[in-house]
C-alpha cells in the first residue's frame, strides 16, 4: 500500500509536467510520451487551425461579464483561446490579436482559433490517459 502511494506520488510531478507541456506546446505531451506521429498530427492540426484563424483576422476573446450568455461566450471563448498555449501567448505578446470585426471571414477565423484551443484540450486529456496507462 505504502509503495503504491509512494509510486503514485513520484509519478505526480511527471504527470503534471506532461499535461503542462501538452498545454504549452501542442502535441508536446505526446512527444514526451514517445508517441511521435500522434504528437506530430496534433501539433500540425492545432497550429494550422490557429494560424489560419489569425490570418483570417479572427477575434481573440477577452473575459467579459454581464448576462449569462455573455459570460458563457466570452469567458468560454477566452479559456478556449488560452488552451492553445504558447501560440496564444506569442500572439498576445506580439500584438497580433484582432479586435472584434463583423464579417464572415473574421467570424470563421474566431472559430478556428477557438477550435484550435479545444483540440489542444482533447490532446491534453489524451496525453493524461496515455501517461496514466488508461490507453496505449
Amino acid at each position: 500500500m505504502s509503495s503504491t502511494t509512494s509510486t503514485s506520488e513520484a509519478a505526480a510531478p511527471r504527470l503534471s509536467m506532461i499535461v503542462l507541456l501538452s498545454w504549452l506546446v501542442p502535441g508536446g505531451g505526446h512527444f514526451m510520451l514517445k508517441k511521435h506521429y500522434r504528437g506530430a498530427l496534433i501539433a500540425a492540426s492545432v497550429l494550422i487551425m490557429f494560424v489560419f484563424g489569425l490570418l483570417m483576422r479572427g477575434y481573440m476573446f477577452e473575459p467579459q461579464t454581464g448576462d449569462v450568455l455573455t459570460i458563457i461566450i466570452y469567458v468560454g471563448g477566452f479559456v478556449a483561446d488560452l488552451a492553445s498555449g504558447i501560440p496564444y501567448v506569442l500572439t498576445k505578446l506580439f500584438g497580433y490579436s484582432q479586435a472584434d470585426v463583423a464579417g464572415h471571414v473574421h467570424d470563421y477565423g474566431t472559430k478556428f482559433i477557438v477550435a484550435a484551443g479545444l483540440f489542444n484540450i482533447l490532446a491534453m486529456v489524451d496525453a493524461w490517459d496515455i501517461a496514466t496507462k488508461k490507453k496505449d
Partner: protein
Amino acid sequence: MEPIVKLSHFEATFLFALFSSVILGVVSKKTDKERLRYGLTAFGWYAVTVFGLGWLMYFAHR
C-alpha cells in the same frame, strides 16, 4: 484590418472538418487501424452533413 486569407464557406468548412477529424481519430481510439477508420468516418459524416445542409438551404431559399 483586412483578412490576409479569405476562405470561402466551403473551404473553411472543409479545413475544419479535416483537422477535427484528424484530432478525433488520434485521441479517441486504441489502435492505429481504429484511429484511421474513425478519422475517415468522422470526415465522411462531416462531408455528408455539409452537403446535406447545403442542399437543404438551397431548396429552402428558392
